């Protein structure tokens, strides 16, 4: 019978490196996907996921199973993702979206900074299905906390109490957050929802 997350983490605390490997294997894909859907950059998502595992490892000696392991781990992930999203947005706001910005490269030459478009690039347009693009765009438009709530609710299948702890809010506040998020999504995805509703 497979050990639970708490059992594995307690074994990691006791010095069992193989148990950490099992946790890594168990959560690498869900973590990377959650972070990718939050920050919309694959490389950044993987960097953040590695940081999550590193923080889990560092905290092993003080680990006490007072909450579910997934609640604790996704709380770390959500905080890192929210900080990253805000940092990226801040850097985008510093630059003009109307004119190219000249910056000093490391070698001293000036080059034009292309302000990143919120929409996927041309290569992704070519390969991605239009529906998937529309769905991703709808999620991207959500405020980051609503986005995190939807991703945790839909893809990690965490219960409301867990998600509320991760987002540091009450359960009623979380339900309100989710309601507003799904309201926005149903408006943004109205063309696809209408098609789906047809007999």
């Amino acid at each position: 019978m497979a050990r639970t997350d708490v059992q594995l983490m307690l074994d990691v605390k006791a010095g069992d490196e193989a148990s950490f490997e099992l946790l890594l294997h168990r959560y690498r894909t869900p973590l990377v996907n959650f972070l990718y859907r939050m920050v919309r950059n694959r490389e950044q998502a993987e960097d953040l996921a590695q940081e999550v595992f590193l923080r889990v490892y560092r905290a092993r000696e003080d680990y006490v199973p007072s909450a579910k392991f997934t609640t604790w781990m996704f709380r770390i992930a959500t905080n890192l993702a929210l900080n990253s999203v805000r940092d990226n947005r801040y850097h985008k706001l510093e630059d003009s979206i109307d004119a190219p910005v000249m910056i000093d490269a490391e070698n001293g030459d000036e080059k034009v900074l292309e302000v990143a478009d919120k929409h996927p690039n041309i290569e992704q347009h070519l390969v991605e299905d239009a529906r998937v693009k529309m769905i991703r765009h709808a999620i991207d438009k959500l405020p980051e906390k609503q986005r995190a709530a939807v991703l945790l609710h839909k893809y990690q299948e965490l219960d409301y109490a867990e998600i509320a702890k991760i987002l540091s809010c009450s359960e009623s506040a979380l339900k309100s957050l989710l309601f507003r998020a799904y309201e926005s999504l149903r408006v943004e995805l109205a063309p696809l929802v209408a098609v789906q509703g047809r007999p």
Partner: protein
Amino acid sequence: MSCEKMESRILAYVDGRLKESERLDVEKHLAACAPCRLRVEEFRAVCVLLEELPVIEPSPAFDARVRALVAAEPVKANWWAWLKVPPRVALAASALLVAALWFGTHQGPTPQPIQVDDAQMMQDLPVLEDHDVLTNFEPLKELPPPADDDSDNVQQQM
């Protein structure tokens, strides 16, 4: 139940997470409220659409990078780490201790200290080559009394 109260229950209803009594209250409201009924249908459709997002796999080097980060972590000093000796070392140390204790309790007879007057010993240094004679004065008692000025003869007899 009002439409406002429905807001806090609609997703749990779509998820199937409501208690039985709450579910019945919601269904009673839905039966009489078309806008909420439409909202429930559209929330369900959104949930289905969200499932269409593809799952990406971490890159092949992901695990290796995590292991490298973990390996680079400094090893914390542990006051009790010295107690964690390998079993073979512990066994050898135990065997050594037992042997030392055994030999300590099974020694031969302890030689008796020589009861010799220090001043006499200093005078008779040449005689100290033979300690057995000094520890047992009986033979000396059997010696005939020294003759007058016959000190040389006594030396020869010893």
